[in-house]
């Protein structure tokens, strides 16, 4: 299948969003992640940041030294090359995150899904997730794809404070809250793993395209 041609849109005077397609899919996401990694590696002058997402990646640049026309042409060409180059193995990492399944919503999730608590734990810890994107708060990684039987809408009332390290699920995704924040996901467990630390060189533990397995600990 021929990939959709790339499209560039200005996001203000200091960023450009490059759209790879119009329908979410695991394949499209891999193309976006792989192009984002190539752009990072290419160290294109005046580029500040590359932020991949579901259908597009956004490049922030220094508008005092690069015009939109120049930089978008450079980036489109680079993304095109990345897309057409024979898929070189993406440098994604595999993570294992130990989880105590003791979350305040664990019982409620079991009730809502009609599963036993043991089943909820087995189905959550029994698969490998991929990091779709980072956002919401620093280091918050949206992980897909949650077992279909565990998929519940977000809580109607978000909680004002979810503790850092809380392992949660909502719709088709799961995540670990990296910081104490408000949140509307169902909390099923907790981890000691530090997901975000601004004093580290790579402050976020997870990067787009990485894979994660949750391991049950007592």
């Amino acid at each position: 299948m021929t990939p959709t041609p790339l499209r560039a849109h200005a996001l203000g005077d200091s960023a450009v969003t490059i759209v790879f397609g119009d329908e979410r899919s695991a394949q499209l996401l891999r193309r976006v992640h792989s192009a984002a990694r190539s752009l990072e590696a290419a160290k294109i002058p005046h580029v500040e940041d590359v932020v991949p997402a579901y259908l597009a990646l956004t490049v922030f640049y220094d508008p005092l030294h690069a015009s939109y026309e120049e930089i978008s042409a450079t980036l489109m060409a680079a993304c095109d090359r990345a897309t057409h180059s024979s898929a070189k193995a993406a440098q994604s990492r595999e993570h294992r995150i130990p989880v105590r399944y003791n979350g305040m919503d664990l019982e409620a999730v079991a009730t809502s899904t009609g599963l036993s608590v043991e089943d909820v734990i087995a189905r959550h810890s029994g698969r490998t997730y991929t990091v779709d994107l980072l956002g919401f708060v620093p280091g918050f990684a949206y992980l897909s794809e949650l077992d279909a039987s565990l998929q519940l809408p977000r809580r109607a009332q978000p909680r004002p404070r979810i503790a850092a390290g809380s392992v949660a699920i909502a719709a088709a995704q799961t995540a670990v809250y990296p910081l104490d924040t408000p949140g509307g996901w169902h909390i099923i467990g907790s981890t000691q793993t530090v997901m975000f630390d601004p004093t580290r060189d790579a402050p976020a533990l997870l990067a787009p395209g990485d894979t994660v397995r949750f391991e049950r600990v007592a």
Partner: protein
Amino acid sequence: MITITRAPPYLTVQNGGRKHSRSFGVPRGGAMDLFAIRAINAIVGNSLDAAALEWALGGGAVRFDRDCLFAIGGATARATLSGKIVAPCTTTHAQAGEEFTVEQITSGRFLYLACDGGIDVPVLLGSRSTYLPGRFGGYEGRMLRSGDSVALGAPPATHPAEGFHSAADLMPRYDSEIVHVTAGTQEDLFDESAWRTLTESDYRISTASDRTGYKLEGPALGNSLGTLPSEAGCPGAIQIPGDGLPIALMADAPTVGGYAKIAVVSEADLPILAQRRPGESIRFQLITIEQSQRALKRRQSDIHTISQLASRSSPDWSAEPRT
């Protein structure tokens, strides 16, 4: 050091923000009015990215614990140093022990106080800015409270003259009713009438406005698009949520979001929007990316002009080239 003797309701350490951590989900953050903070850094002879105090929501007082050349700018305030009026965008010399007081912020929203040498807090992810939602950066990741002391960096070797003042025509027109925007990443999802509404109506800043975003009140944009697959946003992006009322993302907005972005405020005009208070109005005017980048370059060149004038005002400035 500067000691907070009577903390205002909002006081944080800020600078130009974080430009290389968005991929980790860390917003740019930094000063809400990036022009003002750079301008007053230029006025006191600092590097433009030095950290300063961002002050809002009311009066308060701080004490200088060393002799210090300082300036205030951004919002307009009734402010004094040991009882004497402090003029905006003007270098003022404070002796160790003197107290700087803001009685009231009279117009605008964010006041900046820069001291020679800058505020010396640890650099995290390339910046000294406070990111309150993440509780990191600045001073212990939080607002400053009465009794806190923040360190100052070593003052630069040469100082602008005391009383050096930056000309008003080098500053943005904060009273401008017009805020320029460029078309957003989802521009074509909005029809003609949505565009007319956005650019021909007055929008009022809602009380639901903070460093994360400014909710705008005015006519709703007809065709709401619900939520789209998340993608990156930026400060100044104008997104349209379900109720059709625009939200302008500001410095601390999350790096990604799922609402359609109809337009993005020109970086050059973002300070004008940032300084608007709840209840005040603005009107959006569409320009091209090229015009927006030119406007930003003019602002940058104005700041360089201020820097040069400040350095030439120095008593030990000489026209001779320096070695």
